């Protein structure tokens, strides 16, 4: 039994349970059990593999589909980066899915709600695992198809209007993506990430420039990934989308969808498009830096100005994405590790806040801050969960957000101090907006809206799954805070492998792939040494 073959289970399990789930349309209870089992299985598989691979020399597992060798076939790669993201995303999906048992309408369950959640995670897992650009596109499409369905379950006018914009925008993005992938193939003759990284490293070692237009191509792919990741000029679709759908689904989307875009940048840019000291690098880096500043700061200003819990949380996603782009814009091993840690902690914490928001809406019957209040007296447990999650988001030490921000901001202080100042300022404003929710909804005296709520709206027994989901995520968030060290050990490894892709290349393409490259590098080194010797001589 080879371990490599089994990383495909991350894709087989959700896809299989999605397919079976379709035939369980009338048996809601069995469908739910199946879904929970599927997410539990992928989460435990990811965590188990991560622990197992800590003693592995590179920590990379590669499976070649159909045993076709690497640049020609499809490679599926499990490394530290994808492993951490898979573990976090499976846990978030599990929590949001359990939470949805108390929020989803029975009609949606009859309309294939359960299979769609599974298929969404099928796409997300494939995106994290795939080893080539075209399959990344495919996984984006799978994920988007499922998200279109999940957005429009209610079929209301408002949902349709928002979904229409979302579909249109993503169609444009996908078209650009597939054109970009075609151009990459035309320029380099390969789509495999490892092969592309080898191509770029080889060109740089030889001192030859990259093909003309490579920089423009990388900008167009940055545009696509930025659109999915909601970075500065491309974030306008996000707040409205999360506002209209079911709250558990909004939590799932807030955790997953933007992170997949950021993951795509983290996977392709340090290794390929902005590797080393290329033209693309000189154009992309300032773009990313400026975009990070705007994303962080404008996002949080938007959050401060809103007066509706769900909108505040949704706009906050944007501002937090800014920190991840900040990490990407530095593009050092440490900064990328910080970015990765921030991604997983943000997935967990942000989804947890959305799940809390779902319970709050059920208690007060509204998500308008002006009308709600007195929640702390009514439900102290929810208050505790919300407070821990909110403070993790703000980044109060010893909670998880602190460790993410600490690494990114400290790493940025040397080279881009102005970005770090933006980061600190954004943190302060984040605190302000979280305290706004806390003050209005939890601390203020109980408002009249609560008395008007029908009794069955906040019937506690139907809310039990919702509490389970939120509790699970807050426990994970606490673990990320108090157990940051083991997670960071894996994250640093991932960051270093992104900046220096030699290990990734030799894992995917075989040990001899690097031979030629090492030769070039040695020649270059001897040439430099000779030149230095000549300079010293006189």
């Amino acid at each position, binding site marked *: 039994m080879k371990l490599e073959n089994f990383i495909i289970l991350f894709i*087989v399990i959700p896809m299989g349970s999605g*397919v079976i789930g379709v035939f369980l349309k009338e048996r809601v209870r069995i469908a739910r059990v199946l879904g929970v089992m599927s997410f539990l299985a992928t989460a435990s598989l990811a965590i188990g593999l991560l622990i197992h691979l800590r003693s592995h020399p590179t920590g990379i597992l590669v499976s070649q*589909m*159909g*045993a076709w060798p690497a640049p020609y076939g499809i490679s599926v790669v499990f490394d530290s980066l994808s492993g951490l993201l898979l573990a976090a995303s499976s846990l978030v999906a599990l929590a949001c899915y359990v939470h949805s048992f108390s929020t989803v309408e029975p009609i949606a369950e009859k309309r294939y709600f359960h299979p769609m959640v599974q298929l969404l995670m099928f796409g997300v897992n494939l995106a994290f695992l795939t080893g080539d650009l075209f399959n990344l596109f495919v996984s984006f499409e799978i994920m988007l198809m499922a998200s279109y369905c999940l957005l429009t379950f209610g079929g209301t006018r408002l949902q349709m209007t928002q979904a229409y914009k979302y579909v249109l925008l993503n169609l444009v993005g996908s078209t650009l993506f597939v054109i970009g992938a075609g151009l990459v193939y035309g320029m380099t003759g390969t789509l495999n990430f490892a092969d592309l990284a080898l191509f770029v490293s080889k060109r740089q070692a030889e001192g030859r420039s990259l093909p003309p237009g490579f920089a423009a191509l990388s900008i167009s792919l940055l545009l696509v990934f930025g659109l999915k990741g909601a970075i500065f000029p491309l974030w306008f679709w996000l707040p409205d989308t999360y506002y209209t759908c079911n709250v558990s689904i909004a939590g799932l989307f807030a955790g997953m969808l933007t992170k997949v875009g950021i993951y795509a940048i983290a996977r392709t840019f340090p290794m390929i498009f902005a590797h080393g000291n290329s033209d693309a690098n000189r154009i992309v880096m300032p773009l990313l830096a400026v975009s990070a500043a705007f994303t962080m700061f404008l996002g949080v200003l938007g959050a401060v100005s809103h007066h509706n819990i769900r909108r505040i949380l949704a706009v906050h996603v944007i501002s937090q994405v800014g920190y991840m782009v900040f990490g990407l814009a530095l593009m050092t091993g440490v900064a990328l590790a910080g970015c990765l840690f921030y991604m997983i902690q943000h997935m967990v914490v942000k989804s947890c806040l959305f799940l809390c928001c779902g319970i709050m809406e059920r208690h007060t019957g509204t998500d308008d801050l002006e009308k709600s209040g007195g929640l702390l007296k009514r439900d102290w447990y929810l208050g505790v969960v919300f407070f821990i999650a909110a403070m993790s988001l703000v980044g109060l030490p010893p909670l998880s957000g602190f460790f993410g921000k600490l690494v990114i901001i400290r790493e940025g202080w040397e080279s881009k101090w102005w970005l770090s100042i933006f980061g600190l300022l954004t943190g302060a404003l984040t605190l302000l907006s979280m305290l706004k929710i806390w003050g209005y909804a939890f601390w203020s005296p109980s408002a009249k809206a609560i008395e008007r709520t029908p009794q069955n709206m906040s019937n506690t027994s139907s809310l039990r799954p919702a509490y389970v989901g939120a509790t699970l995520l807050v426990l994970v968030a606490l673990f990320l805070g108090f157990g940051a060290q083991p997670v960071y050990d894996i994250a640093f490894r991932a960051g270093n492998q992104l900046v220096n892709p030699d290990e990734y290349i030799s894992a995917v393409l075989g040990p001899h792939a690097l031979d030629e490259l090492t030769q070039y590098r040695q020649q270059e080194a001897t040439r430099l040494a000779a030149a230095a010797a000549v300079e010293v001589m006189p």
Partner: protein
Amino acid sequence: MTISSPVLRNSMRLILPLTLLYALYAMLKGHNEPGGGFIGGMIFATAICTYRMSHGFAAQLRLMPIHPRYLIFLGLGMALGTSAIPLLFGYPFLRSAVGEFHLPFSAHPFHYASAMAFDLGVMLVVVGVAVGMITQLSEELE
């Protein structure tokens, strides 16, 4: 949408079996030559949809007594099953088993690959999607 034309109704007797056969041919040919599950499925769906145009939805249900929606997931399950079986034998996902066997009345050995079952799954998905979409759209028209 049903078109009440005796010419179409009668010629369907010839068109339908021929198109279905051609769809199967295109599907099987796809292993080494242009063709395959996708294009076979498209041709198959064309045949079903033309039949529906001439004979109506009730007749289509008699011909294909399952809602097209379920075909999509049957096909997906079939493709997934075929590609996951190699895992049990220690091979990577999607690995195809190939071999040959002799047919009783043929001099040539028949070359088979388990990828054919995968292709059949693809075909079912395509038929399900194409027929399903047209069913949905024409239901809205009617």
